[in-house]
């Protein structure tokens, strides 16, 4: 047994995140870890990597108990981890990020920059990345940063590799490359923990899978005899399940809407990302933007809502030609924007009700803002989006990722939404939460809102879009409607 943890418990200011969880990891196996949002996966993994300190329980490695609570210690034991939230130091170069804390030293213990850059280039090449390793990390796109993060973990660890949702930002080829690397490590007898919401992926590469429910261990099973349904059933504690399973087959997209478009975008351009993009979307219609991460569809969503400034382009909004809006103008127009980056969407230190009422204080609350009024408005809203727990006074920062996303969505429901723009709306969400969130979106659409979903998850778009634009490197390669499409077809155009 490579690593055993017994009876791990952890609570955050009174809220129990893990209760008496035991886990055994073997050398030479890939161990899957699944569970709904907030089940405690990340918490457990952070304990193993030393990121969290005060927990109860024991951890033994090679039958020897080890003291945890310091990432430094964990690394010394050969444990490395890719965290769910991107870390890395944005202002430093890629090479340095790769060797974060372990720069190669040359004569007199001085850092040998030349060697470091060369080693970084060589190592990145083995994971299929070729780039300028001296450029600051922050100048790269999300998927590249994720790959660098993974590479860093592979470089740093020696015995146990923990990957918390590593694939959520990767494009299919990158994912394949990752899986090959993991298989290779497994061959070499290393231990690997793989956390993901993509059950197929887990079943595909893992030998055993552990399922967490509400901070408790449900079961650890070999994957050979498991089906996706069984896992989801266990994971959601028996709650019913009927979602995007059908997406394995082709779906029929409806014909183009005949309603007058709510919004028409004319030759939008953002230097180096995309250019000359035109599109339109009608009320009650849902337009999907598909592309691999970095194709530019996400930035497009940002530009449309004013979150990012486009270099050129204008839009027709209800037959009026106007320049692209700044965010507060967009909010006034009824454009609601849910960004993928949760860190930029919530105010973590503030209570849920304040986060919920933020966008529509004027219409929903009026001149005098009192907690009583706000809670009266926010409580039903939290119920409606299915936030767990639906406590308006809880700090939003203490919710699990999926629930934070529900709060983000909930904040737009206080006023009429005319155009809902979603960027990776379900990134990092469990199947159940995903369904709940997308149901809300569908609701809004049925009430006459136009919806624009930018995502790199084909299943999501096939299930929820009426029409799909496929982007590749900043150019629209295909518009799909009134036809049958499946995942493969979609990915072919991207």
């Amino acid at each position: 047994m490579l690593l055993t943890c017994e009876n791990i418990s952890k609570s955050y200011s009174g809220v129990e995140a893990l209760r008496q969880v035991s886990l055994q990891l073997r050398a030479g196996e890939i161990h899957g870890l699944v569970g709904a949002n907030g089940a405690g996966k990340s918490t457990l993994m952070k304990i193993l990597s030393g990121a969290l300190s005060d927990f109860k329980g024991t951890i033994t490695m090679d039958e020897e108990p080890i003291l945890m609570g310091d990432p430094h210690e964990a690394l010394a034991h050969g444990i490395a981890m890719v965290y769910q939230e991107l870390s890395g130091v944005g202002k430093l170069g890629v090479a340095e990020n790769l060797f974060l804390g372990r720069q190669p030293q040359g004569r007199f213990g001085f850092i040998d920059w030349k060697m470091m850059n060369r080693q970084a280039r060589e190592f990145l090449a083995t994971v299929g990345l070729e780039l300028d390793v001296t450029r600051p990390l922050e100048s790269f796109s999300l998927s590249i940063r994720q790959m660098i993060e993974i590479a860093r973990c592979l470089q740093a660890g020696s015995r146990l590799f923990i990957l918390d949702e590593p694939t959520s930002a990767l494009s299919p080829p990158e994912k394949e490359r990752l899986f090959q690397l993991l298989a290779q490590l497994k061959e070499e007898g290393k231990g690997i923990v793989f956390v993901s919401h993509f059950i197929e992926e887990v079943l595909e590469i893992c030998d055993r899978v552990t399922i967490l429910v509400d901070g408790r261990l449900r079961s650890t099973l070999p994957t050979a005899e498991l089906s996706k349904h069984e896992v989801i059933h266990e994971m959601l504690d028996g709650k019913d399940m009927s979602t995007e399973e059908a997406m394995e087959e082709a779906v029929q997209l409806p014909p183009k809407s005949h309603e007058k478009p709510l919004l028409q975008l004319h030759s939008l351009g953002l230097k180096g990302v995309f250019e000359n993009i035109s599109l339109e979307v009608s009320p009650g219609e849902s337009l999907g933007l598909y592309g691999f991460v970095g194709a530019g569809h996400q930035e497009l969503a940002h530009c449309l809502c004013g979150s990012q400034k486009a270099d050129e382009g204008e839009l027709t909004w209800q037959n009026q030609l106007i320049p692209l809006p700044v965010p507060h103008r967009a909010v006034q127009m009824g454009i609601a924007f849910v960004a993928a980056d949760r860190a930029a969407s919530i105010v973590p230190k503030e209570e849920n009700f304040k986060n919920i009422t933020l966008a529509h204080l004027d219409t929903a609350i009026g001149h005098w803002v009192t907690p009583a009024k706000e809670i009266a408005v926010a409580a039903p809203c939290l119920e409606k989006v299915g936030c767990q727990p639906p406590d308006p006074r809880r700090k939003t920062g203490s919710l699990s990722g999926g629930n934070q996303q529900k709060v983000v969505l909930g904040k737009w429901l206080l006023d009429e939404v005319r155009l809902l723009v979603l960027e990776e709306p379900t990134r990092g969400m469990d199947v159940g939460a995903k369904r709940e969130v997308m149901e809300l979106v569908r609701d809004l659409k049925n009430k006459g809102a136009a919806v624009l979903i930018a995502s790199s998850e084909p299943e999501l778009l096939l299930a929820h879009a009426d029409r799909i634009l496929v982007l590749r490197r900043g150019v629209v390669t295909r518009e799909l409607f009134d036809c049958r499409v499946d995942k493969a077809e979609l990915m072919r155009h991207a």
Partner: protein
Amino acid sequence: MSSYKSALRHHARDLAPLATLLVLILFFSVFTSGFFDLYTFSSVLKQASTRAIVATGLTFVLLCAEIDLSVALVATLAACQMGVLYKWILDTGPAVLSAAAPDGTFTVSLAGALLVLILPVLTGLFVGLLNGLLTVWSRLPSFIITLAMMEIARGLASYLTKGAQYPDMPGVLPKAANEGIFLGSSFELPYSVFVCGGLLLAAHIVLTYTRFGRYVYMTGGNREAARLAGVRTGFVVVVCLAICGMTAGLGGLMNAGWLNSAGVNQNQHLLLEAIACVVLGGTSLFGGEGGIKNTLIGVLAFTVLDVGLGYVTWVDEFLRRSVMGLVLLAALLLNGQLAKIRQD
């Protein structure tokens, strides 16, 4: 955990500054003679007024995660402008601004006095506005914009006064800052309490019960999230810095009233004191946490410390500053530790 205990924990952060204040009062009452006295209490209130006014504006600025290092010199600039303006009206001003009273002493008309009082506050507002606009436009930290503005204000104040002291001002200022209503025979409630009280109350209401106030907290809590939710964060920052400039101007006038003179050499420690007050009250330097209640307690705690040290006779005259620093440090650490309790 009982709900009582939980409530206590929940409010630990808010209670910590109060505890600090009480500890300080207790300390000085026990270890000095003469401190625990209604007279002292009244002079604490008088001395707190300038800091309270300036700290009010600073609270807005810190809440939205900016800082204003120019407050002290803006206060000085406003005071100097007031002094120079008053003298100008007395000496050469137009008739409408001056009025000869029968006893020959009061020679500035009501219009003149208002002008003398309002213009400096507007100057403060203007400097604050400039701070805000430059900060938002240049995207540089307010720390360095207001640092430069501090030097500019200092220069302007020297230029206006040419180094002279201006002992004359509308009588209402020294009166407000130095006198008060006697409640009973020995306790004097200074008029300045009403000014500060009104200002603090208004600020509290704005911050707690208006949309703008909420936007201030959200801008400080996560600027990007607030922006994406349609808050004009740039506008919020500009307004907060403008408010801070205005209160700095007002504080400068109050201090000039207290000292009964205006000149460039006053308010030398005001910046650090005002920041210490706000932070001692528990408002975060990184935005989004704290409020006027905290500032009020912080100002009182700091002023008790300041006044109380004057009564401490068993400390070497030269070590007094050190003791001030030590007690301040202790108070801040106490504050910090108490606030942590809640999180555990």
